[in-house]
């Protein structure tokens, strides 16, 4: 109703407790609102592949259009991914599987590449200044890595340029408002800071909260 009217077309439904009894009605409610329901499958290392596969199957039976494996705590490892993704695929058949990774252990970008190698349908990414760390992998780096490894559809220079432009704009916002830079020593952030500092010197821009 309101969601759809205002332009939202898909919704990720997350239940940290994975109580299918209450997730099911929510998934159905989302469907009745005209939304594509994406059911989150929270990852916990203690849960076996079989257990997660069974949960994924339950999400599919509950009416989810896609299932999203979510590793909010960044605890997934490449070795675990290599057994877990095939298990989920076996349980879900043709249903699309999405992946939401975090980068606390710095393995996120590598896991994303592995997921593409193994076979994944969707990935959550962010632009560089808002990626990595406790966030998700960076889109630009991922696409460049995929291109170097000849994985997935080739990405055009124009698109990489557009991603770079978005990275730069967000880095400028970070610098302007004193937000954390993209990454320690990141070229984007450093470059933006330098250009912003020069601009600030030229126009004696007051109120600039440049960090570093």
């Amino acid at each position, binding site marked *: 109703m309101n969601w759809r009217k205002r332009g939202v077309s898909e919704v990720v439904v997350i239940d940290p407790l994975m109580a299918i009894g209450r997730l099911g009605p929510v998934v159905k409610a989302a469907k009745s609102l005209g939304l594509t329901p994406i059911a989150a499958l929270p990852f916990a290392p203690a849960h076996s592949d079989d257990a997660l596969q069974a949960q994924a199957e339950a999400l599919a039976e509950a009416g989810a259009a896609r299932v999203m494996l979510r590793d909010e705590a960044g605890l997934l490892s490449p070795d675990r991914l290599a057994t877990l993704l095939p298990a989920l695929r076996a349980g879900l058949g043709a249903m699309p599987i*999405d992946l939401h990774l975090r980068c606390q252990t710095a393995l996120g970008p590598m896991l994303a590449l592995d997921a593409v190698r193994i076979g994944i349908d969707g990935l959550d990414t962010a*632009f560089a200044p808002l990626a990595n760390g406790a966030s998700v992998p960076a889109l630009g780096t991922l696409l460049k890595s995929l291109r170097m490894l000849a994985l997935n559809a080739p990405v055009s220079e124009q698109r990489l340029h557009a991603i770079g432009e978005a990275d730069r704009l967000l880095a400028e916002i970070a610098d302007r408002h004193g*937000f954390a830079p993209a990454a320690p020593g990141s070229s984007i952030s450093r470059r933006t800071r330098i250009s912003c500092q020069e601009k600030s010197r030229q126009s004696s821009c007051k109120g600039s909260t440049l960090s570093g």
Partner: protein
Amino acid sequence: MTEMITGFDLVAEQIRVAAGLPLSFTQADVRLEGHAIECRINAEDPDRNFLPRRVLISRWDEPTGEGIRVDTHCYAGYTVPPYYDSLLGKLIAHAATREQAVERMRRALGELRVEGPATTAIFHDAVLGTRRLRERQRHDALGRRDLSAAAQGGLESRQGRRQAGREGCASCCRGEAMSQPELRYTDVSLTDGQSARWAGAMTTPMMLAAASRLAAARPAAIEVVSPATLRQCVARGENPWQRIELLRERCPDVALRASIALLTEHGRRGADVISTEVATLLPA
């Protein structure tokens, strides 16, 4: 395969026979040595029910090495024509034992690099990786039901090879880069990204300033609502519905996504929870 395990050039023998000459050997001379496997590399997409395609081969690198043979007419720049079948080549592996031949074939499949068409290489690799095939329980009806299992086997084998320090071999099987469907990337910069990196300090005007630039990078979807940013938006006195509408205006061609978490406080269950979440978002 026969030539590999017998060592005889059968085509040469056929030409001899056609010329009226006798075979150059007798049955007593034929000794079978080792095991050979053949994989037919076709310009067909295993992920699309083996749909063949007329397409330009932009890269064709064959595997080489002991016991490996490739019979092919393909080269980089060759266009797979629509007039005949989609066979690109025959990849044959020969070794002393069946297990070695399988391993050799999988290594060769990993080294084969074909760009342009999707090929059956990855399917063969997956089939060769199945436990059933390794345990010689193969049959000629390996079909749809076995495909997912076969894919799993392929994945396991790929992981195994990566661990063995040969990372990337298997990925080369996915050389069908030009015809592979693109992954669906959803941008979560405005939600999880800024929550994690900027402590959720991004306001609606900041998001609007960046929105069209984000959309220009062509993500499949942009997430505009998450549990944390929803709370922050409301706490800041901003209207989340208005934020969504304004972002919709700035990004007319990108799907918008919301993520909601079911609250875990006691007493809230099922449909009540979503109505609570939806109610939170309803305009005052």
